[in-house]
């Protein structure tokens, strides 16, 4: 965390759907290069908040600054500075690996040459050079997931948002995926990640836990375990989510 320079600054964020308050005055910062775990029960408001951070939804009130851009005012500008990978991996099954890279690189305004270089770099790193002309649908899930992460990084974003990226993959692949996350973080990319695997919460440098639209806790996993006298993050999570019911 380089000199604690904030890259995400959320102040008093409120999002209402009719009378329902999905996000109730969220205030938090994420620092450059940090791996930030954004946890919460189903329906706690994580997805709503994440959609606002990436410029897909407007806040009802409050201020959200991502990579020095006021997201409420300039939602389009922020999209060039971030990468996003959803649980469904967002790659096109009926296109080849190369075509997926070209498509996403093109959206982000990269030149043909830049796209080619970035693709070579990632495929080589993953040992997937021979996959270049394969259709996505013929590639096993674990590989697809690593590709999706690489494609989301194709334009060298400041921040990458990962929404439950590891659902359903085997324990070895899940660990390999986290090594990619660490590597990105080491290179200065900020990682904002949601997950239901509580052991993965331990891999984050700091985590927040949401419940019923509010952030109930935010700290390092170690500090949270001490505060809630829990032996792991699963216990912390259950204590927090149960308490507010």
């Amino acid at each position: 965390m380089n000199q604690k320079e904030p890259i995400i600054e959320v102040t008093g964020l409120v999002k209402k759907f009719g009378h329902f308050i999905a996000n109730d005055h969220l205030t938090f910062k994420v620092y450059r290069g940090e791996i930030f775990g954004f946890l919460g029960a189903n329906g706690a408001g994580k997805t709503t908040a994440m959609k606002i951070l990436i410029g897909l939804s407007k806040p009802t009130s409050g201020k959200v600054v991502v990579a020095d851009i006021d997201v409420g005012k300039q939602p389009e500008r922020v999209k060039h500075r971030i990468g996003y990978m959803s649980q469904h991996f967002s790659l096109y099954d009926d296109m080849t690996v190369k075509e997926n890279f070209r498509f996403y690189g093109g959206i982000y305004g990269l030149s043909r040459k830049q796209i080619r270089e970035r693709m070579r770099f990632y495929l080589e790193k993953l040992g997937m050079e021979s996959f270049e002309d394969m259709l996505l649908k013929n590639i096993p899930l674990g590989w697809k997931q690593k590709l999706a992460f690489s494609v989301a990084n194709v334009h060298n974003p400041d921040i990458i948002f990962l929404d439950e990226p590891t659902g359903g993959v085997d324990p070895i692949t899940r660990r390999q995926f986290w090594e990619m996350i660490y590597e990105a973080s080491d290179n200065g990319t900020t990682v904002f990640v949601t997950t239901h695997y509580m052991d993965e919460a331990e891999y984050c440098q700091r985590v927040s836990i949401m419940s019923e639209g509010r952030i109930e806790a935010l700290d390092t996993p170690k500090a949270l375990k001490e505060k809630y006298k829990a032996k792991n993050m699963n216990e912390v999570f259950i204590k927090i989510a149960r308490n507010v019911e």
Partner: protein
Amino acid sequence: MSVSVNIQNLKKSYQKVKALKEISLDILPNEIFGFIGPDGAGKTTLFRILTTLILADKGSVRIGNYDVVKDYKKIRQITGYMPGRVSLYMDLTVEENLKFYARIFNTSIEENFDLIEDIYNQIAPFKNRRAGDLSGGMKQKLALSCALIHKPELLVLDEPTTGVDAVSRKEFWELLKKMQKKGITILVSTPYMDEAALCDRVALMQSGNLMTVDKPEQIVNNFSETLISVKTNNMYRLLGDMTGFEGSERVYRFGDALHLATRMKTKQIKENVHRFLSEKGYQEIEISVTEPVIEDCFLALMEKPTG
């Protein structure tokens, strides 16, 4: 009165992909039996054969006294199935979904209400809400109610807790234990290794094979290596430095620690690791022997060639 399930030499391929590679397995009456494994292990294929939705290429399955091919109509009457992609009508309300499933099976919500009462009480406040507007945890509970509405003898649940938060998962398992007390045999699949401990017996699955079938505590007992937990001030660098450490069978992140499996003497490997890490300049070094859990066993079994 509870039913057993007997699976013999079951094989299924989709074109070139071998989804199930000749599986044999007996599930006892009234067991909660777990199938633990990642996507592509063959869990859903197996469940679809058991629930008479697809045919195997080879082998047979009996549920109680019925054969899944010959007696498929009877099996559909005694089986409750909750597929992975939630089987609800999103534009119907909670109550309409329940009524719909009840009528398909020629019964009513009232007739078997005692069976679903506990679950239904939790979702009753939302009974006029559309299923599509429920949270993930609530959807799962409604889907479970729908699968139970005709009082099945066998309940087949395909990844009921995937994508569900840790609290709702815990509640869901408490409900399953109650269903078991009513005499139902329960087959459940999950990618969450920690849920294995909640089953009576489990099969660990990978690429169409059963790697092992046993009681969860027995699988843990069978772990033949010593497991060392290592923590330091820099966990990211630690994995890189420790990978391939002399005397280790495998090294991997596990929660807030690093796990190192070894066949060496405990005292010696602890000393070796400590010396190595001190020389590398690590601080806050903690090295201890730790008990394996199912995920450690799964990782160990994944390395063994299966056939």
